[in-house]
């Protein structure tokens, strides 16, 4: 029975010696140089940010440090000595822990079992449960060791990952985009924990693309772009704009929202949808009502897993119910399936681009036809007109600036941002009355994300009702006229953007409706 001591006595180092030093690390994947001569060092007790866009090579670099990926060339020095990290077990042995962006947890096992899997084989589960409780309380990460992971919220799952690392007595903790699933309040709590760890000598590598977080938390930042290190900085002495320039190579694009002058009428009405969950891992929807008017963008904030998937299925028509539970421009459609709702003016862009928004192996032309076949001129006597379809795809590519090898390119060959532009474009070209978009800019680079947001804003100002479901609060505050919060299967009232703030939305996201209304 061997439980590691609490992580407050990392090995002493000579003053000024870095804990981790990377020298000229390179890693090539077929077609991309993910890391090009990357060098980086992290001091003991330092919170070091690695800043960069999606695809800048941050995640690859972290996987190399954690032993999940092997570098093609370069050197890793750990506490002043060259090491080769062949697999994650070696990394853990050295004292490197990692909290993954996509949690590496087992849903049908309980918290203690999940943690035990990452500890030495002779760990006793009963003693461990006690230790889990102790450590989680000490660092302000309360956890019930007996609960099954599938019953935990996303924030709680992240705590499991962090506590799992802490029990391994780490000297270096890597966190990959840890705040993407947290409420603003939970982010503050996490930062407190990280500062406490750093004060005990643990080094922290903090991967993010959120500039204000890095400014609030980190001592030093290494900025990456296109696989290379483009600079180092003290984030507290830089402005958001200067950090952004380092990160994307130009100024951060801004959206502008003109005032809608047209006639305001209800475009999408949701009337008290209640739906029991049909999957034990699902969420029950409770009495959800919302109206989206023409000419406005309404946002639904909240962390995925709070009924987002269920609500989107009820709106898109993947699941049906009472006929008047959903109305499009006054027409009851709640009993109709997805295709029939599209016939009546609904457009829907799902969260999963590959697999639901588009078929990966099909060409863009074919993908365009999957929803646009109902447009006049694209089919005759029930047969597709492929010349017209190709023209349609070509117009979509040109109008929405989709970078690809033409309409015959397979959907999977496009980057996330370009594919999303194509999918959104395909829907907009069908002149919808209502547009529903889930996570419009998830995994999309900053430039494309700004274009997509502006596209949605412009669409709404043409008189379309736009509903955006997103986890990114900043995005919602940028483009939405009103914001509602979906938490635990209940939807809050939609509040005008200038009458609310991230703090209040955050409380609602955590399910504290009472606290938020005060």
């Amino acid at each position, binding site marked *: 029975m061997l439980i590691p001591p609490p992580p407050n006595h990392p090995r002493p180092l000579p003053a000024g010696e870095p804990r981790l030093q990377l020298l000229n690390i390179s890693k090539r994947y077929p077609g991309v140089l993910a890391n090009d001569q990357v060098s980086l060092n992290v001091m003991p007790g330092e919170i070091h940010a690695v800043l960069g866009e999606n695809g800048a090579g941050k995640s690859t670099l972290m996987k190399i440090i954690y032993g*999940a*990926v*092997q570098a093609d060339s370069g050197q890793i020095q750990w506490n002043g000595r060259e090491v080769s990290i062949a*697999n*994650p*077990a070696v990394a*853990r042995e050295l004292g490197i822990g990692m909290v*993954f962006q996509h*949690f*590496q*947890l*087992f*849903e*049908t*096992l309980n918290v203690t*079992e999940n943690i*035990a*899997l*990452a500890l030495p*084989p002779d760990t006793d589960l009963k003693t461990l449960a006690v230790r889990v409780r102790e450590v989680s309380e000490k660092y302000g990460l309360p956890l019930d060791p007996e609960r*099954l992971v*599938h019953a935990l919220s996303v924030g709680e799952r992240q705590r499991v990952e962090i506590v799992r690392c802490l029990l391994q007595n780490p000297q270096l903790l890597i966190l990959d985009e840890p705040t993407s699933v947290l409420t603003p309040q939970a982010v503050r709590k996490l930062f407190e924990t990280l500062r406490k760890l750093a004060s005990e000598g643990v080094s922290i590598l903090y991967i993010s693309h959120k500039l204000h977080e890095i400014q609030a938390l980190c001592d030093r930042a290494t900025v990456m772009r296109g696989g290379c290190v483009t600079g180092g900085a003290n984030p507290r002495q830089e402005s958001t704009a200067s950090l952004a320039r380092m990160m994307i190579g130009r100024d951060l694009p801004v959206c502008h929202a003109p005032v809608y002058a047209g006639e305001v009428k209800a475009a999408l009405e949701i009337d008290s949808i209640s739906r029991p969950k049909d*999957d*034990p*891992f699902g969420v029950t929807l409770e009495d959800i009502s919302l109206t989206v008017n023409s000419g406005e963008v309404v946002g639904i904030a909240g962390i995925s897993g709070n009924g987002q998937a269920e609500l989107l299925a009820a709106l898109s028509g993947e699941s049906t119910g009472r006929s008047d539970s959903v109305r499009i421009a006054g027409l009851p459609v709640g009993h109709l399936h997805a295709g029939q709702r599209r016939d009546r003016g609904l457009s829907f862009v799902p969260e999963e681009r590959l697999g639901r928004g588009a078929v990966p192996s099909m060409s863009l032309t074919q993908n365009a036809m999957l929803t646009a076949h109902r447009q006049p001129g694209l089919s005759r006597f029930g047969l597709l007109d492929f010349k017209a379809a190709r023209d349609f795809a070509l117009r979509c590519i040109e109008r929405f600036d989709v970078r690809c090898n033409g309409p015959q390119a397979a959907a999977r060959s496009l980057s996330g941002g370009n594919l999303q532009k194509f999918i959104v474009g395909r829907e907009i070209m069908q002149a919808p009355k209502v547009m529903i978009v889930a996570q419009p800019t998830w995994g999309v680079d900053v430039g494309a994300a700004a274009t997509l947001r502006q596209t949605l804003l412009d669409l709404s100002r043409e008189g379309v009702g736009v509903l955006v479901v997103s986890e990114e609060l900043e995005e919602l505050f940028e483009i939405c006229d009103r914001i509602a919060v979906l938490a635990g299967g209940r939807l809050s009232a939609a509040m005008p953007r200038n009458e609310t703030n991230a703090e209040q939305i955050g409380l609602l996201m955590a399910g504290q409706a009472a606290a938020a209304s005060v």
Partner: protein
Amino acid sequence: MIEHLIPVLIGTLAAATPLIFAGLGELVTEKSGVINLGVEGMMLIGAVAGFGAALHWGLFAGFVAGALAGALAALPFALLTLSLGANQAASGLALTIFGSGLSAFVGQYLVSESLPGLQPWPIPGLSAIPVLGPIFFNQTVVVYLSYAAAIFVTWVLAKTRWGLVLRAVGESPEAAHTIGYPVTSIRYAAVCFGGAMAGIAGAYLSTVYTPLWVQNMTAGRGWIAVALVVFATWKPLRLLLGAYLFGGMTILQLHAQGLGVDLPSQLLSAIPYVATIVVLVLISRDRALLQLNLPASLGKPFIPGG
């Protein structure tokens, strides 16, 4: 009344034993995320190997040979599906066809032979309990071993580190790999265990239950074992119940045939299969239970990447 039922119930346990062994093996295989539809084939290979070995070297050697042959038969399946990423369903079906053919080919030299079988070994004390004693504790050693195997597998899955790792691999091979577990090796072990257990089940059929070799003598029991695992929602003790249900129906329909019930014998022989499936479908309709116990990666190939 009860004295007429006791012989039926005694027979039930014997008839259920091969399903328990094969089912437990498949359960462990599936818990690792691999579905092996070759159970029928592995049972046949185990049956013929066990029978041949028992003829020459005795019953114990027969069971050892059955287990080894079953595990060996599972190896090519493991190689195809785990190392080469082949489709598990198709590879499993191929294994069943291969096992049926191979056992028939080897078995043609054994058709005229027969074995003495195995006498019941009453457990002193326990076998004297009225009603339950003769049913549960006046059986052959192999039946006792089937109880032990069920308890052992339950214990390993629920309480031990091995069980924990196995469940973890079955649920998310990606996460298990990221944490640093050798997913492929663990699955190899689980598949070979499944093969060995199917081999033991086959050896029991040919050396104790019948006891002689007949071509395709497993008569679909391998398939029932696969079905039992799913309907038992991957819980060993439920699997035991399912196996007894099947065993009971088998013996009942034999008695019915003996009593001259006016139904075609083919129809009566089908009853255990139909009844088992119907009952198990009814009791396993709880989706929550299914979801919690279903190995989430079941049937999906996992090849660790760089």
